[in-house]
């Protein structure tokens, strides 16, 4: 429904050049994107543990931190942005392993790859759902954990916004790793090894956003860079994941 409406509006706008209008309509329809997106969302909603476990991991490990490094409020508030960001990164990474696994094992990934359409949009749909069920809840939960770790109140909003933008990039980049390792039997540690270095820019600018706000500076530039990383990742990462899926299916 939604995608058809987009198609109509796009083809109306592009009236002057008819050929271009047709091409735009073909892109706007994006075969199967909406269907797959809805299916994935329903599946995620029915497998509650997939949504809850990363959040529980996030909260549990962060609760361990004061036990490990001591409960002094000043130290905790200094470390809070970094701790929360690193834990969000780990939670995303660990939940990513199963991104393509189920579809690979029951053969539907192969069916998707056999369709006469690029794999770009199915991958994008899956990543979008992954972000909606892990990244966004993590971001929503982060101010609470910030409070527990004595983070300054001026850091809550930047923390939330940077996590919303950043976890989307993390999901996209991690999808490449998940696609590369989907054919392996126990990819957990390998996935972390190959994806962690690629997460570095997101981590730096994510914590940079919060730190800038805490130090009383404007955090707009850092958010802009996070947005730019997200734009590049959204354009390129599904392409790389699609290639990786085809390689994994050959295995």
């Amino acid at each position: 429904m939604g995608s058809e409406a987009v198609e109509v509006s796009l083809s109306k706008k592009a009236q002057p050049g008819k050929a271009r209008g047709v091409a735009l309509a073909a892109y706007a329809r994006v075969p199967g994107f909406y269907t797959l997106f809805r299916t994935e969302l329903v599946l995620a909603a029915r497998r509650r543990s997939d949504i809850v476990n990363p959040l529980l991991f996030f909260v549990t490990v962060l609760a361990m931190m004061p036990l490990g490094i001591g409960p002094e409020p000043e130290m905790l508030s200094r470390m809070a942005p970094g701790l929360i960001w690193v834990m969000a990164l780990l939670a995303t990474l660990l939940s990513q392993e199963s991104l393509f696994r189920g579809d690979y094992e029951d053969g539907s990934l192969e069916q998707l790859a056999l369709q006469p359409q690029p794999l770009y949009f199915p991958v994008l749909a899956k990543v979008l759902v992954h972000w909606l069920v892990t990244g966004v809840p993590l971001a929503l939960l982060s101010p609470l954990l910030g409070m527990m770790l004595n983070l300054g109140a001026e850091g809550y909003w930047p923390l939330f916004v940077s996590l919303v933008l950043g976890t989307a990039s993390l999901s996209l980049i991690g999808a490449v790793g998940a696609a590369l390792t989907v054919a392996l039997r126990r990819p957990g540690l390998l996935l972390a090894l190959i994806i962690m270095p690629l997460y570095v820019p997101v981590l730096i600018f994510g914590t940079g956003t919060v730190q800038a706000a805490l130090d009383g500076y404007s955090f707009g530039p850092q958010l802009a860079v996070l947005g730019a990383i997200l734009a590049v990742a959204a354009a390129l990462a599904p392409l790389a994941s699609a290639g990786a899926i085809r390689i994994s299916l050959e295995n």
Partner: protein
Amino acid sequence: MSWQWFHRLGSPRWFYQKSSAWLPWLGGAALSLLSVGVVWGLGFAPEDFKQGNSYRIIYIHVPAAFLALAGYYIMAISGAIGLIWKMKLSFVVMRAAAPIGAALTFIALFTGAVWGKPTWGTYWVWDARITSMLILFFLYLGVMALSGAFSREQSGDKASALLALVGTVNIPIIYKSVDWWFTLHQPATLKLTEASTIDPSMFYPLITMIAGFYLFYAWVLTLHTRTMILQREGRTQWVRELVGASAPAKA
């Protein structure tokens, strides 16, 4: 325009036979340049008035860091050639380049730490360049781990080539973000476009060492590639004839 040379290049057998003739020249040139550079740099170049003799480690450190970065691109480009033109040989080169590059990155990090102790007073600093070299080291390790994880060799080739390519896109971003993050390392001394800030009496031995390292890299890469070709093509007739095995040899 004849593309025959290009297709011939894809044949491991052709490469093995041709490179037998190159090896003594490459090795001889590399070793003679390196010995000239080492004696010149360590024995005859003037002492630095600020850092004393400890600066001489740049004659190892700088060329190793050069090659560590260039080696990543060599690995990624040969991986890309393999993915695009499905050349067997380029995957072999890619796999051979990974451990060499990782070793060079380690040498650059290690010599940097050794130099850092007398100069900065500490072995390790979380400075932009050191950190990005460390991440480069992790990227190398990731490519090596992924290429070894597949039971089917071709899948390992393609998957690690794709990962190397994704890393290539990321290296400038990682470098820039880490640079923004924190900087203590001195700015680049050698510049192509401007006059460099190093005295000619120190500069010429350094250039000799860099050229020597490049040749040495080419030599080691060729040697390693040849060994891997023999391992991979162990079942073919020409390898068996070459190693003089009459019975089906098992490695």
